[in-house]
């Protein structure tokens, strides 16, 4: 890749039909000097072009596979680019770029391989009650199945070391990947730390977020995976 100042930190942003916001989100993080790879998950709109124009490397899935698949593609791509630190970041603008440094800092100060953003340790802006209840149920379920004592299981903002990232192999293409990722962290036995981050709920991010019916689908996906291979 052309001479970036710091090639060791890679931000990966999975995006599917996010043309409305992706340009601003990418520009915000590119100007902070990170390498940014947007995984365009087979979008049918301008997502890929706008992400590229804003300064991201665009990795395009020829077909839509889901956010989990896009994340795994991003991780693999960043590892092949020689990344030392990989940060996952949501495309819908709900994360604050300022939180990225505290996540990366938490990796080194705690000698951890995973730093997981938590909105419940940090703050939320305009979070509806229904969303809070759904996330609490998801967190309870994940604690039960993985044994990890985390406060926010479905936060897209995370940082991981190269060693940590190489241990992540997501097989859940759709939304069950958030629980699966924690499963993989638990199985790797590597150290993880939670870091308070702020999530900003906007009309846009809520419209794209998960609903209750999706959580049932996630349960089915997770159980089916345990039955084969």
């Amino acid at each position: 890749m052309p001479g970036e100042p710091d090639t060791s930190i890679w931000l990966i942003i999975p995006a599917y039909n996010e043309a409305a916001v992706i340009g601003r989100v990418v520009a915000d993080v590119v100007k902070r000097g990170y390498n940014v790879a947007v995984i365009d998950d087979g979008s049918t709109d301008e997502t890929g072009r706008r992400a590229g124009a804003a300064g991201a490397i665009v990795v395009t899935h020829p077909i839509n596979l889901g956010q989990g698949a896009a994340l795994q593609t991003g991780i693999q791509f960043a590892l092949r680019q020689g990344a030392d630190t990989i940060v996952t970041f949501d495309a819908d603008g709900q994360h604050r770029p300022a939180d990225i440094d505290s996540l990366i800092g938490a990796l080194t100060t705690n000698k951890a391989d995973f730093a997981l953003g938590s909105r419940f340790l940090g703050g939320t802006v305009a979070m509806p009650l229904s969303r809070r209840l759904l996330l609490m149920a998801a967190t309870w379920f994940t604690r039960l199945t993985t044994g990890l004592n985390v406060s926010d299981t479905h936060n897209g903002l995370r940082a991981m070391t190269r060693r940590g990232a190489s241990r992540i192999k997501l097989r859940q293409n759709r939304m069950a990947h958030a629980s699966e990722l924690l499963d993989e962290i638990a199985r790797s036995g590597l150290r993880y730390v939670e870091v308070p981050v702020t999530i900003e709920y906007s009309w846009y991010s809520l419209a794209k977020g998960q609903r209750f019916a999706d959580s049932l689908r996630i349960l089915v996906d997770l159980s089916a995976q345990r039955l084969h291979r």
Partner: protein
Amino acid sequence: MIAQIGLSILLLGVLFYAWTEYSRAPAVGLVSMVVAGAGLYFVWLPSQATWLASLVGIGRGVDLILYVWVIISLMVMLNLHLKLRSQTELITALTREIAIANARPVSAATTS
């Protein structure tokens, strides 16, 4: 007698299929093998089926076999579902490699 031979051949087929599937999806393979084995047994000893049916609270042996057949169908469906998932994983791996191989560098994207 003809029905018994026909059914036996079918069930042996199921048994063989379940055995080949065992390594891929142990849960599905095992249940199918047990069910097919039981089927073979009852085809040749129908009176035993009636005895077992009344034991578990089902009226006739035929009814018992009907229920077991429903279970087999459900297992086949589950197995197909799992196979589809494996297929999806292959497609995902392929798509991922294509995506990474075609990654667009920043310079090219900004000039286009």
